[in-house]
C-alpha cells in the first residue's frame, strides 16, 4: 500500500497517525500499531526525498 504513495501522501498519512497518537485515545495495542504505521510512512517520506537522481539530460529537437 505504501509503495504507491507520493511523499505528500505519505506525509499526510504520517500526520494522521501522529494526530491520533497525540490525542491519546488509543489502546496500547492500537497505539503501538499506529506507531509502527507512522514509522512506515516516515520511511516512505525519506525514501521519496532520496529517490530523485541528480542528472542533466539535454533533449535536442530532432532535425527535420
Amino acid at each position: 500500500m505504501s509503495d504507491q504513495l507520493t511523499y505528500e501522501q505519505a506525509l499526510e498519512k504520517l500526520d494522521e497517525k501522529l494526530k491520533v497518537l497525540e490525542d491519546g485515545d488509543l489502546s496500547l495495542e492500537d497505539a503501538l500499531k499506529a506507531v509502527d504505521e507512522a514509522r512506515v510512512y516516515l520511511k516512505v517520506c525519506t525514501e521519496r526525498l532520496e529517490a530523485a537522481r541528480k542528472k542533466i539530460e539535454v533533449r535536442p529537437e530532432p532535425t527535420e
Partner: protein
Amino acid sequence: MLKPEEAQRPYTVTELANEIRRELRPLTAMLVKGEVTGMKQGAGGHYNFSIRDGVSRLDAVLFADDARRVTTLPEDGQVFIFRGRVDFFGKTGRLSFITDQVEFDDVGKLRARLEELKRRLELEGAFATGRKRRLPFLPQVVALITSPTGAVIHDLQETIWERYPNMGVVVYPVQVQGAAAPMSISRALRRCNEEGLAQVIVVARGGGSFEELYAFNTEIVARAILGSRLPVVTALGHTSDRTVADMVADVEARTPTEAGSRVVPKKADLMALLRERERRLDRETNQRLLRETEKLQTKRARLVQVLPAMVRVRVDRLAHAAANLARLSPVQQVARREEVLRERARRLAAAGTARMTRARNALASRRAPDRLERALLERFATEQRRLDHLRQQLVAFSPEAVLARGYSITIDAESGRVVRSAAETAVDRKVRIRLATGRLGARVEQVEP
C-alpha cells in the same frame, strides 16, 4: 530592325540576368510595407510569401537563417514592414524581395489581435484557476524548455540544485525568439508530454520587449500549454506585460529563480519537517511506554499483595477438585471398596477371634473336670510313652538280647550266682551255661584267673 553596324553580340540569358542583378544591387536595405499573402514554408526552412498592397505584388523570401533572427514570423493578412533587398533569380526568372527583418507595422493593431485571442481563450475558460493543474509537491525530474545558451538555463539549474541537490533536470532546447519560436516551443511542450521524463515543465526566457516575446503571445504556444498533461510554469522575465503563455500556464513566475523555487521544494526544509515528525513520534512512543510501564508496575504491586491469597484459594480448590476426581475414579472406587471390605474382614476376624476366645473361656470354665481328666490322660499317655521307651531300653539291655548276639551267661550251679570272673569258680565246680536258646550243664576244667 537592327543595322549591321549597330549589331551587337547578343547577351546570353545568363548575362542579362546577371546584368539585372547588378542593376538591382542598389535596392538593398530597403524597407517595404505590405500585407503578407501566400505564406508557406519550403524545403530547408525557407519561407516563401508575397508582399502586396492594393495594386502591386512582390514575391518575397525569408531564408531559414534570417527566419531564426526575426522577431516575428509574418502571417497572412498582416501588414509588416520588411527590410531586405531585391534580387533576381536567373534560374527561375523571378524577382524576389529577400527579407532579413520583419517588424510589425502597427503594434497597436497587433495588440488588438492579441486582445482578441485573450478574449477567445477567456471564453473557453483557459485562464480559469479551476482548470489549472496542481504542481507536484516533489517532482523527481524537472523539464526546462528554454534557450540552451544564456543566463536563464544557468539560473534555473542553480536554483533547482541549491534547493534540491539530487533533483533531475532535462533540458529541451528551443528557439525562444524569431519566426520559428512558436513552433519550436509548442513542439518541445508536446515532446515533454510524450516522453514523460519529467513531472513538471518550466518554460523560460530572459525577458524582452513585446516583439521579442512575440512567440509567447501566439495561439500555437497557448494551445500547446493548454494541451499539456504536465503542469507548466512560465518564467518569461519581468520586463514586459504578461503574455498569453503566462495566463494559460498553471503557475506564472517572473524570474527563473522564482520558477525554480516554485517547482522544487527545499530539501532541507522537508528533512527538518520529517525530523520534527520523528521526534514527535519518539516522544509519543516513549511517553506511552512509560505510562504503560507505570501502570504495569502498579498492577504488579497489587498482584504481589493479592497473590498469596489467590494461590491459597486456588490450591484449596485444586485439592478439592483432586479429591472429587479421586472419588469418582473407578480405580479409586474399587480400591476404596476393597479397603472397606478389608476393613470389614479385619473387623469380622477380630470379632470372631474375640468371640471364640470368649466362648472358649466360657467353655473352659464350665468344663474344668474334663480338663482334669484330659490332663490325667495326657499324663498317662506321657507315662505310657516313657514306659514304652524304657521297655525298649529294657529289651535292648535284656540278657536274651545279649545272648542273641552270641554272648552266654555262666551261672554257678550251686550258688546260682553269675560267674563274672574266673576267680569266682574253681576246677570241677558245676556251672550252668545259659545260651540264647537252651542251657548247658558243665564242669569247670581249667581256671585261668
